[in-house]
């Protein structure tokens, strides 16, 4: 019972223990806040990438694309684990806004809006056509004109150049899109053939994926027109097929099934004139497909985790120093306890109990204050911005809305346990050293 009573009294009555509690509290506070915000940002970023790509992508990095995709689409649509498929044309183009000098280099993406909306989160990224994706390429001012959807940041950039800021309503803006169609061999299509290299589109909507590279350079075009702009030749080609699995299908399981379908499709098409194009095609999950975007973010998260590993080591060190101080103050108590028959293990247990209480109290306070801070973080940031013009992230640069502040229970539990373990580790060496002291040596008058 003394192992409960004494640690509790040490905690409450010894001011020096407040330093240990505060050290643990601060470390836990920082770790909780940074991990929540960082993990929130990474999760949000991954979510946006997932929404952009769908679950799985059968595609090639080659701008030439691959042929016979209609057969593959049919095959995929028949599969019972697939909910939606969307063929996509990709290419690079020059975009010129009518009335403006100069061109902007953009990526174009030709899509069937209904299929793409069913397969990816495309519909949710739109400003004006969230409820009816099918009409996304119909400009509000004239539905008969060919429409285009601009990445929100691209639109902002063009508007700023034109002299007015973010769009205030549907504007009749015409854009010329200049493309270099490629043959199946990857060569530029010959002039004078049936190639189309320039087309005019009218602004019909914005897309906000929240992915800076996408929103800053992507223009969505109707599928057939993009195909005309990017590919030349009699056999139609696409660059990718985005796939959405049915809800009960796991990502890896679904991708493996698609890969198997792809292999049988490739076998079937092996005799075709453009079968060689199929060799560059891969089947990837959305994570693999967007790896180039996600990997740096994950790397950043790893670096942060390592940094907070150092914070944990610092906590252990602080706790160890404080415990050395506490135990050196308590050597008389150790001598007294040993003189009444407390074992070495009992002394270790006593100070471990004390460390446990320090860890529990410090981390509880840290978690509570961290949680309160996170709940209010957006309000605090708003207040700082209104008052001092300070923003944690410049929203004109970073595609971040509110600062993520959802506290995960598993993170809370992990931090709590880590803090307690850190305290126990920090207290272990001083406790062990204290336990080894001879009671006679401690209680000798000249040692007091």
């Amino acid at each position, binding site marked *: 019972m003394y192992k409960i009573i004494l640690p509790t009294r040490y905690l409450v009555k010894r001011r020096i223990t407040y330093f240990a509690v505060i050290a643990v509290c601060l470390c836990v506070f920082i770790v909780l806040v940074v991990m929540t915000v960082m993990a929130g940002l990474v999760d949000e970023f991954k979510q946006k990438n997932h929404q952009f790509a769908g679950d799985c992508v059968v595609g090639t990095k080659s701008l030439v694309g691959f042929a016979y995709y209609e057969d593959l689409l049919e095959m995929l649509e028949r599969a019972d684990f697939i909910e939606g498929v969307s063929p996509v044309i990709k290419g690079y183009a020059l975009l010129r806004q009518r009335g403006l000098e100069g061109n902007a280099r953009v990526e174009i993406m030709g899509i069937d809006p209904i299929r793409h909306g069913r397969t990816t989160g495309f519909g949710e990224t739109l400003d004006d056509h969230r409820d009816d994706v099918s009409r996304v390429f119909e400009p509000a001012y004239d539905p008969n004109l060919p429409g285009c959807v601009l990445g929100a940041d691209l639109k902002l950039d063009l508007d700023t150049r034109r002299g007015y800021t973010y769009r205030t309503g549907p504007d009749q803006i015409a854009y010329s899109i200049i493309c270099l169609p490629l043959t199946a061999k990857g060569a530029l299509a010959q002039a004078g053939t049936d190639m189309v290299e320039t087309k005019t589109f009218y602004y019909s909507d914005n897309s906000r994926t929240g992915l800076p590279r996408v929103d800053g350079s992507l223009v969505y075009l109707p599928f057939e027109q993009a195909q005309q702009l990017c590919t030349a030749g009699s056999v139609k080609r696409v660059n990718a097929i985005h796939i959405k699995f049915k809800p009960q299908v796991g990502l890896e399981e679904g991708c493996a099934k698609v890969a198997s379908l792809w292999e049988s499709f490739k076998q079937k098409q092996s005799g075709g004139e453009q079968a060689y194009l199929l060799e560059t095609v891969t089947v990837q999950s959305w994570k693999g497909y967007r790896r180039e975007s996600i990997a740096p973010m994950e790397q950043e998260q790893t670096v942060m985790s390592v940094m907070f590993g150092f914070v944990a080591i610092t906590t252990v060190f602080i706790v160890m120093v404080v415990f050395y101080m506490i135990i050196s103050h308590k050597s008389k108590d150790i001598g007294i306890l040993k003189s*009444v*028959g407390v074992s070495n293990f009992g002394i270790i247990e006593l100070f471990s109990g004390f460390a446990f209480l320090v860890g529990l109290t410090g981390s509880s306070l840290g978690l509570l204050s961290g949680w309160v801070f996170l709940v209010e973080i957006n309000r605090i940031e708003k207040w700082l911005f209104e008052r001092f013009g300070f923003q944690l992230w410049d929203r004109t640069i970073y595609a971040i809305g509110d600062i993520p502040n959802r506290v995960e229970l598993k993170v809370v539990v992990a931090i709590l346990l880590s803090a307690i373990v850190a305290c126990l580790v920090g207290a272990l060496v001083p406790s062990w050293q204290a336990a080894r002291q001879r009671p006679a*040596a401690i209680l000798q008058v000249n040692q007091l």
Partner: protein
Amino acid sequence: MSKDDFILAAEELHKSYRMGSTQVKVLKGVDLAIKKGEFVAIVGASGSGKSTLLHILGALDRPNKGVVTFEKRDLSRFSSGELNKFRNKTIGFVFQFYHLLDELSVLENVYLPAMTGRSVIGWFACRKWAKNRARELLAQLGLAERARHKPYQLSGGERQRVAIGRALMNEPTLLLADEPTGNLDSAAGNGILEVLERLNRAGQTVVMVTHDERIAQRAGRIVTLVDGRIEHRHTK
């Protein structure tokens, strides 16, 4: 008196300490035997080794050479668990500087040995008895009103009485007192000696270390320690 009459016996005890580069020999072959119910005073000048001897007798320290037997059992053959039990149940220690735990109340300090000798469950089973016993001891020592006080709220004499109460908590066979009056004025010291005498009259075996011959006179037997050896034995 036959050897069998003694509950505690020390034979040829040697103890030395290292102080810097020199080895200081504190005990140089001490023989001592304590009979049940005796009140023995160990007298000697400062540095003569009396406290060291008392610590060895109470298993708070180990001799470099020699044997200490308690009820014919060699203490050096005790396991660490047995030694802890021996310190908890068989020996009651009273120190010159009281050595009470500041975080505990007077009552808690007294029943501390009952707490440390038991598991949490064991403690819950006997806590009523322990608290009553501690209150009883405090009443006997004239501290009934001070049970809820903290040690720093008491006078030196009162603290030493609390320390005696703690030492008696588990009804030890042997009470070892290291200069119990050394830090007290003569009135308070006298009160402590009266308590020890009263306990001895009730059958408690007491071994007391003191440097004061007059205080030693209150014991039934006086052993004089000079330069690490027993020089003189005197029985009243």
